[in-house]
């Protein structure tokens, strides 16, 4: 499997001419990975690994990379510096203040990191070695499916029903009453119509003959009678016509008066 080049690590593998150390940077996944590979070469359990020896090997690895003029990522150089420091802590007596970890503690932690990385690398290999779906093992190609029929049960009681109805009614009881504008023959229209005809009516004629034609007998017709009558009263008051009714409920007659000169 070709490892994916990490972004700070895009150089191709380079082999040292000498057999002593092979530097193939493209194959490493960072400094800890390099350390782990070097540690494996010691062929002992990681718990008993010699950190001093490991530090030496790593420093040699970095030196070799330098000799080959390989550009090492900063991580690798920082690790080299840290290992050199650790080496000195392990070799010299420990005059450190108490809140500082001892050289042995630092070494133990490095061992732990190596173990943990190794454990994860092995786990990855073991997981990948399992039978994989659509490679080693296949699921049913034509599942007929299981039919799930769900029946909906509504959670609503008679009380909910009555309350909802009551709320609706209560809401509407407080509502504003809208009166629709009815289509009626207005007094203004009647006044205009009568005024237009006046002057041509010297003889008595019944009020009914002044009604606009083509009106239905219903509400609009009745409103036309009322409006025309009211308009005739208005014109009589201003002295433009005369009104006459011979008996109760009898026909109403009208005629025009000459314009006051």
């Amino acid at each position: 499997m070709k490892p994916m080049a990490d972004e700070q690590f895009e150089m191709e593998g380079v082999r040292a001419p000498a057999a002593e150390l092979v530097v193939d940077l493209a194959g490493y996944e960072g400094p800890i990975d390099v350390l782990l590979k070097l540690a494996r070469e010691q062929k002992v359990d990681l718990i008993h690994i010699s950190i001093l020896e490991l530090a030496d090997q790593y420093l040699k690895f970095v030196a070799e990379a330098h000799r080959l003029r390989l550009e090492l990522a900063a991580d690798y150089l920082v690790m080299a510096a840290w290992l050199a420091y650790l080496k000195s802590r392990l070799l010299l007596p420990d005059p450190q203040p108490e809140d500082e970890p001892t050289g042995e503690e630092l070494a133990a932690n490095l061992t732990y990191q190596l173990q943990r990385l190794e454990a994860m690398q092995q786990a990855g290999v073991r997981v990948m070695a399992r039978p994989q779906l659509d490679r080693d093992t296949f699921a049913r190609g034509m599942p007929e499916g299981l039919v799930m029929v769900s029946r909906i049960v509504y959670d609503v009681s008679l009380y909910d029903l009555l309350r909802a109805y009551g709320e609706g009614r209560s809401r509407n009881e407080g509502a504003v009453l809208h009166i629709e504008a009815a289509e009626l023959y207005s007094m203004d229209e009647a006044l205009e119509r009568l005024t237009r005809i006046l002057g041509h009516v010297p003889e008595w004629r019944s009020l009914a003959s002044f009604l606009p034609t083509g009106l239905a007998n219903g509400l609009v017709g009745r409103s036309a009678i009322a409006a025309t009558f009211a308009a005739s009263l208005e014109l009589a008051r201003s002295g433009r016509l005369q009104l006459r009714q011979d008996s109760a409920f009898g026909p109403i007659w009208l005629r025009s008066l000459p314009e006051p000169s």
Partner: protein
Amino acid sequence: MSGDSFAEQVRLVEALLFASATPLDEESLLSRLPEGAALPAVLGELQDHYRSRGVNLVKIAGGWTLRTAPDLGPRLKLETSVVRKLSRAAVETLAIVAYHQPVTRGEIEEIRGVALSKGTLDTLMEAGWVVPKGRRQTPGRPATWVTTDRFLGHFGLAGLTDLPGVEELKAAGLIGPRSDVTLSESSLQPDLPGFAAPAEEPEEPYEP
């Protein structure tokens, strides 16, 4: 590969039939078996094996496939009950149908003062509580809605006359002036419910 035992051939054909997304004809099966494999015998063996099981080997449209046994078909279905809340609009609409039936959609909207969203009557019809019955003899001949026996059953009513009357609802405090709305407020806020022009309700998510 030619060394496959008969049992191995049976295993392979079984796996192929299981995993294939289509029925496999004998040609396709043979192409995956060693030269000279006795496919008819293999298929015969599998057919015998599965005859009494929950899955059968059947030939469909020239290809072989594994199918669940026909007698188990109904057992593969599962009916479950899902308890759901009815929306407020639906409850109110149901109540209006109950009290005013037969009632048209337009009349329900007039009573509620808002337009009825699409799913509301559908939901009630699906629940089996209301049905359309007849038409109003007015222009457009709109359908009228009534409640069903199932509605009476769900709410434990012997009949529609069991529903309390408007006066009784008033006495029970279920109808009455709303204390939270005063006249002065309502004149300031023309968009109070019941005052605004009917507007389409926000459609509630409705799943069939």
